[in-house]
């Protein structure tokens, strides 16, 4: 059974295995297919048109399914690997062990944002950015640029307190838990973390940075935490909503999975905490 752990509690061996599995998926080309899929949805999900992966209620079940698929790919390389999560309310500086040389490497240099240390540095020739929107083929970061701050635990708790999952018009202007977690409104949780990391994480091809998976594993955990706090609140909308994935509608690109199928994460994995 897959147990997703806080990245801060991983052993040196667990970090090494996770990094090696990422490198193998990259080498084989499988990694880049995930980047391509993500960007395709980023560019096609619109507030007043069809929307599946972002700015809509299915943001959470879509990414849950996306992460499960990625975790299975990792496990096909090394069955002991699980997706760790990054609790950015706790590990909130560029000095966190997350960004150390033996894990994801650190921030980029000033001149061009290039990450210079760790397994994902361009010099190692194992992490070329192939799916890209500009000419730069190296991983870039600008951690905490401009004095930006990661969301605090109090801000997370204020969003977890919201009782209603989502509201009309079911897009980036909606009230409710989903949109405040996604970050288009209010204290801004998910979007702000993408911007805090910077580099590719701020773009449509954000999965080029492996921290994407640890960030979204935590977003996914926050959804589970919210469900535990609000057992009477359900996924919305239920049915009959134009351009939006209702509870029982299938989600692209898989077309065989619905938000209802994704509501119980324990069928697929558990977390290392009691939520």
């Amino acid at each position, binding site marked *: 059974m897959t147990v997703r752990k806080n990245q801060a509690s991983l052993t040196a061996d667990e970090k090494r295995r996770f990094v090696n599995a990422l490198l193998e998926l990259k080498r084989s*080309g499988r990694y*880049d297919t995930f980047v*391509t*899929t993500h*960007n*395709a*949805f*980023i*560019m*096609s999900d*619109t*507030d*007043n*048109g*069809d929307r599946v992966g972002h*700015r809509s209620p299915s943001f959470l079940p879509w990414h849950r399914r996306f992460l499960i698929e990625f975790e299975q790919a990792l496990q096909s390389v090394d069955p002991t690997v699980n997706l760790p999560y990054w609790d950015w309310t706790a590990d909130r500086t560029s000095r966190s062990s997350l960004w150390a040389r033996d894990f994801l490497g650190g921030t980029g240099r000033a001149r*061009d*944002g290039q990450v210079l240390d760790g397994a994902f540095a361009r010099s190692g020739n194992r992490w*070329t950015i*192939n*799916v*890209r*929107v*500009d*000419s*730069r083929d190296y991983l870039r970061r600008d951690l905490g640029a401009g004095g930006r701050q990661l969301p605090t635990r109090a801000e997370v708790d204020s969003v977890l307190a919201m009782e209603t999952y989502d509201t009309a*018009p079911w*897009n*980036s*202007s909606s009230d409710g838990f989903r949109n405040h977690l996604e*970050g*288009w409104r209010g204290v801004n949780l*998910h*979007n*702000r973390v*993408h*911007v805090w990391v910077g580099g590719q994480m*701020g*773009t*449509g*091809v*954000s999965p080029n940075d492996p921290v994407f998976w640890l960030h979204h594993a935590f977003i996914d955990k926050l959804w589970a935490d919210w469900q535990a706090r609000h057992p009477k609140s359900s996924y919305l909308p239920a049915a009959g909503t134009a351009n939006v994935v209702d509870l029982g509608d299938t989600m*692209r*690109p*898989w*077309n065989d999975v619905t938000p209802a199928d994704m509501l119980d994460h324990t069928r697929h994995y558990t977390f290392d905490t009691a939520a």
Partner: protein
Amino acid sequence: MSHITRRRALGVAAGAAGAAAGLALAGSAVADAPRAAAPAAGPAPAPFDEVYQGRRIQGGPAHGGGHHGGHHGGGYSVTIDGEELHVMQNADGTWISVINHYEPVATPKSLARAAVRELQGAPLVPLTLG
């Protein structure tokens, strides 16, 4: 390494997405009229054409003809040194691009300038797949 257009990339990657999305994208490439995706609020933003940090940034109504496929700017197109920057208008009237996707700004010109700063001199390229 193959170079393909953003629209083709969308077609490939979201191919399973079904005909509806593909048709919507094809429609956006041939129609000058504001798309259904365009938010109702406010007048269209003013066109601009300036050099910012050494890069020529232009914005204005999108032209038909197929080479601006896949944009969701509600009929508004932005380029940097002649290359299209994929932009999108949010429901509240703010704007994002594929370069600054998670941080909305007020106008397409601010968006183009933010992309120039982020690019640090690098050219935009059509979506490139390894």
